[in-house]
């Protein structure tokens, strides 16, 4: 219901939001979060194969995004960039788990006191289970390629590996996933 004295305004583009974010505008962070948190959360929950610290990683990804907002390249959708930040965060966490546990621990202290109301994870489908059994490198590669639409060239430069490694990872990941989904149907 809209009454007198209410005027809608056009929403800002992601690039405008990133600019405002770089200038410390908290409203821009809220808008960016509303637009992309679902995609980031979904990506991370699959990429980590366990939902335990997904909330902290989403939180960390957006906070990290804030710090680098000034270096945003201006592209129309911030989603690939945010997903990239999330993956970097995920991998750094694996590399120096101790330091990140400390940071994530401090993030956790900001949680509300109430018991975590998050519902238990639903029964994962066969595909999700197979995905969770992949190595992290293969899992990230196949998700970024098939779900986020990154090209093999983009994946190679992002992970700083030869493009042949990306192809190999994709091939191995598909093979394992298909083995789980369609047993006996592989050529």
């Amino acid at each position, binding site marked *: 219901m809209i009454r007198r004295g209410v005027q809608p305004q056009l929403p800002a583009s992601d690039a405008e939001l990133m600019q405002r974010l770089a200038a410390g505008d908290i409203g821009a962070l809220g808008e960016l979060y509303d637009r992309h948190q679902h995609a980031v959360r979904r990506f991370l929950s699959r990429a980590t194969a366990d939902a335990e610290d997904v909330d902290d990683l989403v939180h960390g990804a957006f906070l990290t995004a804030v710090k680098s907002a000034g270096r945003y390249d201006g592209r129309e959708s911030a989603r690939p960039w945010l997903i990239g930040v999330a993956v970097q965060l995920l991998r750094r966490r694996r590399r120096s788990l101790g330091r990140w546990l400390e940071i994530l621990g401090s993030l956790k202290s900001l949680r509300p006191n109430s018991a975590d109301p998050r519902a238990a994870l639903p029964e994962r489908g066969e595909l999700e289970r197979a995905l969770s059994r992949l190595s992290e490198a293969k899992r990230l590669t196949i998700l970024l390629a098939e779900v986020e639409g990154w090209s093999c060239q983009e994946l190679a430069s992002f992970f700083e590996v030869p493009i042949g490694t990306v192809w190999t990872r994709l091939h191995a990941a598909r093979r394992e996933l*298909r083995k789980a989904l369609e047993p006996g149907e592989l050529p």
Partner: protein
Amino acid sequence: MSACPRTFEVEALRDGRLGGSERAGFERHLSTCSACARELAALERLGAALCDSHPTSTDELEVRRARTRLLVAFNQSLIGRAGEAEDPLSAVGSRVSRRALGALAAGVAVAAGALWFGARADEKPALPASAVTVRADAGARWTRQISERRELILLDEGRLWIQVRRTGSGNEPPLLVGLPDGELEDLGTTFTVSAESGRTTLVAVEEGSVLLRLRGQAPRTIGARGSWAAPPEEPAPREQPFEPSASAPSAPVPAVKPPAPAVMTAPRPVGSGELPAPGGASERFKAAMQALNRGDGRDAAARFSRFLEQYPRDPRAEDAAYLRVLAHQRSGDSSELQRAARYYLRAYPAGFRRREVAALLPSVP
């Protein structure tokens, strides 16, 4: 199943590994080879399955809490003293107090007695630079932070009345109200904002204007005497047709007034944590509550009616309108009860007790 030695090229095609002439050649082969076509379909199925799969059930309320947590952390990082600052969300947790919603009418009357009188302790002293006065309902969960760069109020649940008095010196930090599903930016104003069950339910502006940004909606500015109310999540109770106030003997002034100079019926206190003027609205509200609590419904109803007439824009007006319904219920006057209930629904279409009040009315054919 017929095998084909070129099947491995299907994946190469999909991953962009085949260049110009190789690609064209393999695409020609693909159009004639059933084995390779099957393989391509299988790869596409896998890609589609990966895109369609929804592994997590995201609890919308939890997402909104995470959003608040993020904004708090962001604000702290700007303040630059995240280590020393009071943990804002644990403060929110400790503020959780009696919640009137969902209680039986009699229980609600007792809890409602704590409205405003119980809210005082919730207020934090602001830095001298703040131009902001906040009053909260007793059950409100909210937190407040101030820095040189901005003042941030985060509302999780309940109702806040907020007044911003700018001196024009430019020294006061801008105010942002974080809501479960958006933000509200003050543009120099007095307003009320309510949140319920993880969403913003009402913004009513008395003076000045605010910029309201809600998730999934275009930002909107709300000017003086304008208001925005969330559409009901369930079908709203059918409202009684508007009755001219002449039909009501003690018809109070409607909350949403026609355009008129924004004159306060009582002077507003300045500065955080000040009690409303003694002997005025507060005393009258308290006296009406006392009458209700000692069981004198008729006296209580008359007192709430007078309160509504004299302080129609007081933040407690909605409570008074609701309590008047209860008072009539207690005194057993059903025609007055219905009149008071219709007034409440008309004046507060998004009010906290809308459903309870609507349930007191006979259903409209």
